[in-house]
Structure formats: structure tokens, C-alpha cells
């Protein structure tokens, strides 16, 4: 411990023979650990962030809602007239002229969620566990009060004993909602291997 003894740091009443603190995993310690876990699962950042913090917070929040499969909150975090595009080609053309992996309006996003929720989507039985890593976040101002952003993403997926990963970049259009708070309007997920034969993308990308 870089020459500093545990006893000096923690100053326990009764130092253990190995220099470790006295036994402390009691009910109160368990309560604290369990409460920390539950708090972290449900905590939403409070208060007004500004600038880069505000944008990053929205992007992280959207990723977390998907990872936690909180689909009602996830759908509600998008503006009513939202679009969700996952291109199928590395250099996509105008999406009117070619198919995507997704090109969803709110109605088809709602279908996507309903199919998972219905309990009979075999490809999500059991469901995928996912963790999205966002980095390289950049943002700039769009028309009016809107904000554009892009980020790199790595999605780790665990399902049926197998860990898979997906990498790509994401593009976002953010705009004020009816209450004037910035919200997600459009999201584009551009996977590195979007034009390769796809495995079972049955979770929401």
C-alpha cells in the first residue's frame, strides 16, 4: 500500500493481525450495498445541466433506458414525430431508395416494443442483456433550438451463453419538447458491419 499501512488509513479500533480492518460485513453494510445497487439502477440525473453535459446526459440516458429494457420510458423519451434509422449499407443512399436494417417511425418502433413485450418473440426468449458504451461525443447547433450530436458506440450483448459485440457510430437530432426541454427526435445507428450478413438483432439496436 505504497508504504501507508491500512491501519493508518482506516484507523480501526482493533487492527486485524494482517493489517486489515476488523470484520464489518454486518446487516447495515449489506443494507448499504443493496441500496446502492437499487439507487444506481433507477437514478436519473437531476437538475439543469448545460452545454456538453446536457447533450451527453441525454445520450447516456437513452442508452441506459435501452440497456435496462425500460421501453415505455425509452419511447416516451423521444419526441412524438421521431425517426429511428439503422442503415444497411456502409455508404447509405437516400433511405427512400434503399432498404435499411430499420427505418422506423413511432408506429413501427411501437410495434417493435410490442413484439418484445408480448412474450412470444422467441428470438428474445431469453432476452438479450446489453451494455452500450458511448464515446467521442461531439455536438453542434442545428436549426432553431435544435442540437445535433454524434458519438461512437460499442454494444455488448449477452444471450444464451454467448457474448457478442457490435461497434458503430450514432447520429442524433435533439429538439425541445412541449415543455421546452431538449429531447431525442431522430437517432441513426450506423454499424461497422451493417452490410455483412447479420446475426439475430432481435434486441433493439
Amino acid at each position: 500500500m505504497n508504504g501507508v499501512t491500512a491501519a493508518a488509513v482506516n484507523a480501526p479500533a482493533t487492527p486485524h493481525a494482517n493489517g486489515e480492518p476488523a470484520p464489518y460485513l454486518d446487516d447495515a453494510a449489506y443494507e448499504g450495498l443493496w441500496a446502492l445497487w437499487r439507487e444506481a439502477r433507477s437514478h436519473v440525473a437531476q437538475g439543469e445541466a448545460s452545454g456538453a453535459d446536457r447533450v451527453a446526459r441525454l445520450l447516456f440516458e437513452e442508452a441506459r433506458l435501452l440497456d435496462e429494457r425500460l421501453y415505455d420510458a425509452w419511447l416516451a423519451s423521444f419526441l412524438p414525430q421521431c425517426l429511428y434509422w439503422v442503415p444497411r449499407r456502409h455508404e447509405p443512399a437516400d433511405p427512400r431508395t434503399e432498404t435499411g436494417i430499420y427505418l422506423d417511425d413511432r408506429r413501427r418502433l411501437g410495434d417493435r416494443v410490442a413484439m418484445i413485450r408480448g412474450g412470444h418473440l422467441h428470438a428474445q426468449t431469453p432476452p438479450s442483456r446489453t451494455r452500450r458504451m458511448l464515446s467521442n461525443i461531439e455536438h453542434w447547433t442545428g436549426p432553431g433550438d435544435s442540437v445535433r450530436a454524434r458519438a461512437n458506440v460499442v454494444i455488448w450483448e449477452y444471450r444464451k451463453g454467448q457474448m457478442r459485440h457490435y461497434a458503430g457510430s450514432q447520429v442524433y437530432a435533439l429538439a425541445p419538447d412541449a415543455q421546452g426541454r431538449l429531447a431525442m427526435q431522430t437517432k441513426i445507428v450506423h454499424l461497422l458491419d451493417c452490410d455483412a450478413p447479420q446475426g439475430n438483432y432481435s434486441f433493439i439496436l
Partner: protein
Amino acid sequence: MPRLAPGARHASPYDALVRPDGMVHRTLFTDPAIFEQEMLKIFGGTWVFLLHETEIPNANDFKCVNIGRRPVIVTRTADGEIRALMNRCTHRGTVICVQPHGNAKRFQCAYHGWTFTNTGELSTVTFAEGYGPGFDKAAHNLGRFPLVASYRGYVFGSLDPDVEPLEDWIGPATALIDWSVDKLNTPGARVVQTSSMVFQANWKLQNDNNGDMYHVPFTHRSVGEATSARHGSGKGLDHFRGDQTPMYVKYYGHGHKLIDQRPAIPSPWERARPVPGREAAADALEQRFGPTKAREYLDMTGRAGINLILYPNLIIAGAGSFNVYEPVAVDRTIVHSYGVVLDDAPAEVNTLKNRFLEDFTGFGYRDDNEIFERIQQGLGNVPEMEWVDFSKGLGTGRETTGADGAITGNVSDETGIRGAYDYWKVLMCRDFLPRVLV
């Protein structure tokens, strides 16, 4: 190998694996040695789908495909003839073309610079003075399929030069190809790839499944229920609720089978799930062309109607889409999906077609793939249970043979799947090896 009755003898080891009572042996899906033989005797032993003519429309266009794992360059020569060349240098075996598609008169091997024309002829041997008088340049042309032929734009190749003519092999199923092509038969119709997917299971599971309506209400329950709950009945897969319907399955011989949904789909447009942009596109078309013509256009946008599976690797799905199965290993398969773009139709028609093509490939195929992988797990790991049951319809008296020899069954019967396994046995029991021309 399966247990045989005492004293039973079979001319071919494959004969006993497909039984007349509809039972098929598990090793067809799990044995790598059988898979290797399929690449010779099935993918090398009959007509196999290569590509659509409109994918290589111009002189010197080419596209690379894999046919029973063989890397193949399909070229259109300067004369307009379509050739299928083995993408393998005749010097050391190197794959010579790594571009998925393009336009080229010649292909040069990156290893020692040998150059071949797009007809397959070896045109240049580098530092040729190093080869003695025994070197026969003409014997070093690229290997090519002895037969290439097309029907209504669908191009097939055969490594068996003695196979029957393509139209005879397709047989009465040509009428279904005609129906599908004539639906969208405009000069501006061209085929584009729309998606591809990979699953960890045997290729025949996909071939079976495309001729299987029995699974639809169960495997695709997520799509059916969410669609009915959110958009009302009569949409999406609603016509597949029970098995007493005007739809039917059919077996045409040579492994070709059909599910005909058309009797249950008076209007593809009204049946279709509400895809994104549906309302705006319909409004635009009605304003421009009036309701009657607009409905004609809108009925071109969906993909339901028929599943016509031409053995071993092509399924034509309705009018304007088809899939190609690419076997990779005994337990790994890639499926490529294609759509039709109509360059001479209003833009809204093509936009809607794209949204429809995303819909079932996105929502339906994922459950199919999950089921294929579960089957592979079940068949691959319980050797004590040897047989798979494809007997549905047998002995019921509800299968009928028509004047053209095709057998029709109830829509949930396994009539066509059994037929495909009969053809599998015919091909696998042959004493045959594929051949190339040079």
C-alpha cells in the same frame, strides 16, 4: 447411420436416411461428411440459382457469388453471354477477384499476375519463357460451369452437363415464376440486394421452413399478436390463423415446392402491415393518378402471395422479392435477400417497397433463425433419437395429384418438404461427380 431392419441392404448409404413414411434422419442436418457430399451432389449435381440477369445488365459486368461454397464469378461477356467461372487461379488456386461486383474485361491474379478474360480464357502468363513445351496454356483456362441458362431473368448454372433442360427441370412451377414476373414486368424492373443474414444451423432447415405454413401461427406469434393488438385484425399474418383456409401447398417434382397464399389475399395492400410512410405515399399516388391507378401501384408494394422454392437454393417470395440460401458449413447458413426496384414506376412505389422489405425480414426472420438454431441444438446433441418427422398430410387422403403431376396438400401439410427430401435422395444416391469446362 440409422439402424436398419435385420438383413436390409441399401445400394447407397443415403437411401435409408429418407424414408417413405416421411421420416428423415438427423444426420442430414448434423453430419459434416454428408454436408460435403451435398456440396458435390446437390450444389454440384443439378441446376443451382446463380443471380438475376439485371444484376449484371451491361457488357463486362460481373458479380461474385458462392455456389455450394465454390467462389464463382458470374460474368456478362462482351457478346452479352452469361458465364459462371470458378474464381480460382489455375496456377496456384488463388481467388482472383475479391470485388463483390463490378465491370471488367479481364481478371488478373494478384499472386503471379496470370490474367484471364471474362470468358475464362487464360490470356497472359507472366514470364512465359519459363514454361517448357509441355505446358498447355489452353488447359489453364478458368474452370467454368458447363451449363448456364435462364428463365424469365433468373439465371441458373449446372456442374452436371447432362442435367435436363432448365425449363423441364423447373417443370409446371414455371407458371408461378411467370405469375411473379408478370406482376412487375416493366422495362425498368431490376433486382437489388436488400439484406443478408446468417444463422448457426443447416441450410435445409431454411429450405424446409419456406415451404412450411404449419409454423407461422406459432413461430411468428410475436408479429401476429402485436399486429392484431395494435392495428386490428386482417393485417399481416392474420390469414394464417388456422389450417382450414383456401390456401394450399404444392409439390412440383425436382425438389420444387409452393405455398400459395393468394386465395387468402384479395388485396396485398389492404392485407399489409402499416409500414412507415404508408399514408403519405398513398395520398401522393391518389392525388397524381386517381384511386384506381393508385391502388394498382399500391398493390405492387407488398411481398406476400406465394412462396415458390426452387431446389436447392432459391425462394421467390411473392412478386418482387426472392431469397438465396448459401450453405457455409453443416451448421452455418447465409441467406441473401433481394428486392425489385421499378425504375419506371413513381418514386413512392419503390420507397414503400423498401419499407415492406424491411418489415418481414426484420420481424419474421429473427424468430425463424432462433428456431433453426434450436433445431440444430436438438438434432445435434441427442444421437439416440434419430428421426425427424415430415409426415403431416400422409395417409389423410387430402393430398391430390393433378394432371401436371404436381401434388397438392392442405396448407399446413408437409407435402412439399417430403418431396424435396425425395429429390435430395435421388441426387445423393447418384454415382456422380461435378465437372467443369476449361
